[in-house]
């Protein structure tokens, strides 16, 4: 769908990136300063690469060898900035209509009513951007980009400037875009939960290079302790089927081959396949019988590897869970030594439900 191969040097920063995205959501993931936004700007046509090629479907947007550079206004690529960047002098309705004027009637695949309804911005149409909340602005910005019926939608950390509550409010809208408008999305984020929830392909960038490409579980796995600087970013992605809903307690139980996972969210329906993000720092290991603690989520597994830093206080333990998925746990080396953990031992992993971010629990995106 979108094929990007670009090189760019700016002062001390070098970007050299190649990846391809399919029809769903492709996430560009990585720490700030890794070049995510630059990639988005290159695809949008707001920057020119030193060398490279960008192809969208059958249209060549950039080919430095052949001197091709399609300017932004002819790319038909929608862009949602981190901070909405609405036109402050135009009402919401006019903001939404802005791109439509330049869309040929034949290309107008997205209807205004559908966008207004999906984004829930009906009551905002007559207002000026200055009177909207951050979340409302962002929804209007998404609608504005959608209404030009783009061939690709770029979203540059669309939730980063919002508080937690607004994020929870907007994420479902982004999911609905993905599922209802069938427009491929290139989504930039450094939030693991968003990426897992939305993306079918994850491109992990590190210092201007592609560190990994693939499904969320592989790409986000903490493979070495080189990751230790960012131990809070190390996650495992588990998938299972919703087994039971408990409205009285506001939780759902997800059946996994290694045990059951309790998540602090009522899922839409029993039987749906979901993915759960578990931070490695939130996993404890024990040899307890089930039920002896307040922790509801207990998963059985076998230690596959223990990686520890000789000088540092931490050790990363990789567990092979029954059913084949891998769960990572960050422990102190002290705990590893005290429990005499070793490769091959069977242990029980404990995950507190409250530490599971409900934003990271969602139906598996269609590839």
């Amino acid at each position: 769908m979108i094929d990007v191969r670009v090189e760019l040097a700016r002062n001390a920063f070098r970007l050299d990136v190649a990846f391809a995205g399919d029809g769903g959501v492709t996430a560009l993931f990585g720490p700030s300063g890794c070049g995510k936004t630059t990639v988005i700007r290159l695809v949008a046509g707001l920057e020119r690469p030193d060398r490279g090629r960008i192809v969208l479907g059958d249209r060549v947007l950039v080919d430095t060898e052949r001197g091709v550079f399609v300017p932004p206004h002819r790319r038909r690529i929608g862009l949602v900035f981190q901070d909405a960047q609405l036109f402050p002098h135009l009402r919401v309705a006019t903001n939404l209509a802005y791109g439509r004027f330049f869309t040929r009637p034949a290309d107008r695949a997205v209807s205004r009513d559908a966008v207004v309804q999906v984004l829930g911005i009906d009551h905002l149409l007559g207002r000026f951007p200055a009177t909207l909340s951050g979340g409302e602005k962002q929804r209007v910005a998404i609608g504005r980009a959608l209404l030009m019926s783009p061939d690709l939608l770029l979203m540059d950390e669309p939730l980063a400037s919002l508080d937690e509550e607004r994020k929870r409010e907007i994420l479902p809208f982004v999911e609905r875009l993905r599922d209802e408008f069938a427009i491929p999305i290139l989504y930039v984020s450094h939030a693991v939960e968003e990426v897992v929830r939305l993306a079918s392909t994850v491109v992990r960038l590190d210092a201007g290079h592609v560190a990994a490409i693939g499904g969320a579980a592989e790409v986000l796995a903490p493979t070495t302790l080189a990751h230790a600087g960012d131990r809070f970013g190390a996650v495992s992605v588990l998938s299972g089927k919703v087994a039971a809903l408990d409205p009285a307690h506001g939780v759902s139980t997800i059946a996994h081959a290694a045990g059951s996972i309790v998540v602090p969210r009522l899922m839409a329906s029993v039987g749906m396949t979901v993915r759960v993000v578990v931070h490695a720092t939130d996993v404890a290991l024990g040899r307890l019988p089930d039920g002896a603690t307040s922790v509801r989520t207990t998963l059985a597994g076998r230690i596959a590897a223990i990686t520890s830093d000789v000088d540092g206080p931490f050790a990363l333990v990789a567990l092979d869970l029954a059913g084949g998925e891998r769960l990572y746990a960050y422990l102190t080396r002290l705990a590893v030594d005290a429990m005499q953990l070793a490769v091959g031992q069977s242990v029980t992993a404990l995950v507190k439900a409250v530490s599971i971010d409900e934003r990271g629990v969602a139906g598996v995106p269609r590839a």
Partner: protein
Amino acid sequence: MFSPEEWTAIGLSLKVGTIATLGALPLAVAVAWLLARGRFPGKALIDGLVHLPLVLPPVVTGYALLILFGRRGVFGAALAEHFGIVFSFRWTGAALAAGVMGFPLMVRAIRLSFEAIDDRIEQAAATLGAPPLWVFATVSLPLAARGIVAGAVLAFAKALGEFGATITFVSNIPGQTQTIPAAIYSYTQTPGGDLGALKLSLVAAAIAFAALILSELSVRRAGRDGGRR
């Protein structure tokens, strides 16, 4: 209350100020845009040239205009021959002088308001399919409206007060090039002209004040329409 000559001077000043401001405005907007957003070699030189009338003695600017746009001037001769536009010793010359003197002030104010626009708003418009000129007309220009009004008022006030370049370029001919400042100057050179000088000074102050209030009102109006961010 005013003698016919005084009325003529007042009317002439208003005409010269208005024409100078309106004539300079499109060019000032274009130059301000180039200086604010353009990346081209020689930008510093253009910037310097624009500001020249601000730092040169007005007499020098007037003399330069005389050389360039006088009847035998480089451009003046050609303009007179091909288009019938004559500047020397006409009110048109006074308007040209006033426009040139007010130009840097106008460009400064407009440039600042262009620079204050987050260029990502313009980029958002481009990604929505708007070609550059359309982005300029529907996004940049309206968002810079206050600066444009402020620049125009500043230039108008400057045009009303312009004396040195005007008198050097087109002299001080009653009914032809004698604007309010020139008339005031003449009064001060005439025995018993104090009252006339005072009256015209008050008129000049009143016009400048009225222009300021008008611009303030129009800016407020733009603010109510959501121009405020």
